[in-house]
């Protein structure tokens, strides 16, 4: 080759190497700065950080749960989880008629330092009762289209009227008071209800009820979702959308201590070692958004994340006979098991002429009997689930541990009999049923499984895959004949599951099957205002009986979570409804340095 060619080639090669080698060797400097930070993987993109305008997805809620706070929070260690005071100073005083709650607010709680506090040069201002009222008005403000308005709508005095007035006027009037929210003085807040609302303390732990300062809203407006300001243990540092969200410890966080009460296994597993220490126990948190299962799991194995849910395809190599495989144990990895308070199901549109209503009851029952739940659990959950006997999951108030659903016995004979009873012996004459499901490889595989199951008794199923908005759209518009979904408890009360079947909650509300049974509706109205008592439980059981008989959903499983945590990661304890957990985690930096070398 010519000199020049040779030189040119060499030049290109050298250039490439000079770029590749040093950069490939560049150490991840950032990891040293974040050594004492919690590294959380996030399975889906976080949408935004504004409690009023960001939709109700779990991942945004978790992100917000570390920055903001509400009046109440769930007990971290005690089970079943129960609401305890967070920003509230002690439990509220409840009136005899159960319609008035009086909260005292902790004194001296400061908002994060932020430029939006112009008058005090960026120093965070003290929290007052008015701040709660302001934050809650934002939920009712039609301009925010808040996903969380339901927590107060129809239950708090005057809030629906305030909102209707805003709609008519074209814009909300924040100067106008809401009867149901009264700031008696700077640190006292009263909530006046239309009727007893036993779930009030639950919803005051939830994302929509979080408090934020009006200065932040006035300064940032729509950009608040990228620039949150709250009272929480962490403050916002930076966010590279769809990649990484970083929070730093809030130096002005109020004096909150690690709990001293827990269950027996908390003591033995070391989760009470930090009792009484001031929170947060770490210096910050780095959320990394990774949608694909494999890269997320592999990153955990390399020590880049502190915990991970085991994807179904990695399960067999990680866990054998409910125990971690040796390789993991050597690296200090710990297996954490818990039952999630959720239910997965195949839903029917009760308004559909074929599968809905009284007419389709035997078809629905037949399909329930044809599901091989054990095989489903084996293939898709690696055995990490329990067959659901009804919609209500274990460890939720109102769960019926003795319930056995006679339809969920995987009895093909029974299924065929029921199908015959429905008028379609062996499926003859039954038109093809369309099953809607959201996109995703695993979703696709699960619906193929469903298709095969139904094929066994002669029912033809066509699978229709959708993007998430299309999927939601079809359900809300009542166009989905059958659909596969799951519901995770907003709070640990069976009522949260029963409201899925309450007539008035039909689409576009959460009653996605559009089930409307007057007898059930009456019972629901009754329990909606009852506190937790044996009588209420009895009615709960009766309601569940109706739902099992009518099966507007085929109740599949309640999932168990098997989470792996790295050896240096302390105090992990999972509950789907408890979102503000990062402050309790502790990183053993010594152990981290030692163990990471092994990975």
């Amino acid at each position, binding site marked *: 080759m010519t000199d020049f060619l040779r030189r040119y080639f060499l030049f290109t090669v050298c250039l490439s190497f000079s770029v590749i080698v040093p950069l490939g060797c560049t150490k991840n400097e950032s990891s040293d700065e974040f050594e004492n930070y919690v590294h959380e993987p996030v399975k889906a993109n976080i949408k935004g950080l504004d409690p009023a305008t960001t939709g109700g997805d779990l991942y945004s809620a978790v992100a917000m749960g570390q920055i903001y706070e509400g009046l109440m929070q769930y007990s971290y260690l005690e089970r079943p989880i129960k609401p305890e005071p967070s920003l509230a100073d002690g439990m509220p005083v409840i009136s005899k008629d159960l319609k008035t709650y009086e909260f005292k607010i902790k004194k001296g709680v400061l908002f994060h330092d932020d430029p939006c506090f112009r008058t005090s040069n960026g120093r965070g201002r003290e929290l007052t009762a008015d701040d709660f009222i302001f934050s809650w008005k934002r939920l009712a403000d039609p301009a925010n289209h808040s996903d969380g308005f339901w927590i107060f709508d129809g239950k708090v005095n005057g809030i629906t009227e305030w909102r209707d007035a805003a709609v008519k006027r074209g814009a909300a009037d924040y100067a106008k008071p809401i009867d149901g929210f009264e700031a008696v003085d700077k640190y006292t807040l009263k909530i006046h209800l239309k009727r007893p609302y036993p779930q009030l303390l639950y919803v005051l732990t939830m994302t929509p009820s979080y408090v934020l300062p009006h200065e932040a809203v006035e300064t940032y407006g729509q950009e608040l979702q990228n620039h949150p300001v709250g009272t929480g243990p962490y403050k916002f540092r930076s966010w590279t959308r769809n990649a990484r969200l970083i929070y730093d410890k809030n130096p002005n966080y109020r004096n909150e201590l690690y709990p001293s009460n827990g269950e027996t296994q908390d003591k033995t597993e070391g989760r009470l070692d930090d009792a009484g220490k001031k929170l947060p126990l770490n210096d910050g948190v780095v959320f990394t958004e990774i949608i694909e299962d494999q890269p997320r799991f592999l990153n955990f194995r390399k020590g880049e994340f502190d915990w991970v849910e085991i994807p179904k395809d990695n399960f067999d190599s990680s866990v054998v006979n409910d125990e971690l495989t040796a390789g993991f144990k050597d690296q200090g990895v710990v297996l954490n098991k818990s039952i999630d308070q959720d239910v997965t199901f195949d839903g029917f549109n009760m308004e559909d002429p074929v599968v809905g209503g009284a007419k389709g009851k035997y078809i629905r029952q037949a399909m329930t009997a044809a599901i091989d739940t054990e095989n489903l659990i084996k293939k898709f959950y690696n055995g990490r689930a329990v067959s659901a006997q009804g919609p209500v999951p274990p460890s939720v108030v109102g769960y019926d541990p003795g319930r056995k659903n006679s339809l969920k016995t995987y009895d093909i004979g029974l299924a065929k009999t029921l199908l015959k009873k429905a008028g379609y012996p062996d499926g003859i004459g039954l038109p093809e049923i369309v099953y809607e499901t959201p996109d995703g*490889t695993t979703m696709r595989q699960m619906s193929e499984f469903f298709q*095969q199951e139904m094929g066994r008794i002669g029912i033809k199923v066509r699978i229709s895959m959708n993007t998430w908005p299309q999927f939601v759209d079809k359900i809300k518009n009542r166009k989905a004949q059958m659909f596969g979904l799951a519901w995770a408890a907003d709070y640990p009360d069976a009522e949260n599951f029963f409201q899925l079947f309450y007539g008035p909650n039909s689409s576009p509300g959460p009653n996605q099957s559009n089930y409307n049974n007057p007898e059930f509706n009456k019972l629901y109205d009754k329990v909606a205002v009852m506190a937790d008592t044996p009588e209420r439980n009895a009615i709960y059981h009766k309601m569940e009986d109706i739902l099992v008989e009518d099966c507007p959903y085929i109740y599949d499983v309640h999932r168990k979570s098997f989470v792996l945590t790295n050896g240096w990661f302390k105090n992990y304890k999972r509950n789907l409804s408890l979102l503000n957990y990062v402050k309790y985690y502790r990183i053993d930096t010594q152990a981290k340095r030692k163990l990471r070398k092994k990975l």
Partner: protein
Amino acid sequence: MANAQQVVNISTVSQVPSAGLWMDAFRRLRKDRLAILCLAIISTYSLVALLAWLGVIASDYAAIGPDSYAAPSAKHFLGTDIFGRDVLLRTIQGTRIAISIGLVTSIIAIPIGVVLGAVAGYFGSFVDEVVVWFYTTVDSIPDLLKIIALSFVLGRGLFSVYISIGFTTWVGLCRLIRGEFLKHKERDYVHAASALGASHTRRMFVHILPNVFHIVLINFSLRFIIGIKTEVVLSYLGLGVEPGQPSWGVMIDDAKLELARGVWWQLVAATVAMFFLVLSFNIFTDALREALDPKLRNTK
């Protein structure tokens, strides 16, 4: 008068490519052993696809079995997938889908490209402007967006894949055909045909088109490659065939989760099957190009 005209030898006027071009091409191809080998491979795949379509072979590809993720063995040559379905049978069905994509998208795209290109090149002026505007517009929209939008409208599934690929890949062919028609319409033989009273349509499709048909042939061959590779991406995005149907794209999509469990057979089966078919098409297309028209080597 009429008599005298009829005496003129039509064959010199019509200039349909005489045995010359095709015979020559065929002869050149025949000598290229590699190309013949590729043609044989392609034919084998097509035969397999046909047999699968007719249900003669691999008809029980959907049969679920008890051994989930079984490694290749005597019973299952290429192992099984999550539901115990035989991977070899799935690969064969995938062949059927791959070949059908090439065929059907050609049936859709080629007429569109040819007709529009011919009309544009031949008539020129306003018609040309409109067609060029149209395909420039269509072409400037990123391919993936077009395909995804169409799948939204048409729903998912193989049928929608056919149409979306067919309706988005005709532009290249159209451009080439238009260029050729622009050149040819000024040639003597066309003028002669027109003098003989041939209508526009006749001139376009009976006289000119056969002269540019080799472009169509090459494009047809290329289309298989594009179609097969696009289907893989579409399946990854969830826009491919219906769930339950195995295609190579679906198998590769499954594989991205399976590697973690050490299950490599679906990935290898689909990739290798696809590799040999696409490679054969690639080599054959090149050979075809060289044989048919050395000047065409410049164009994609």
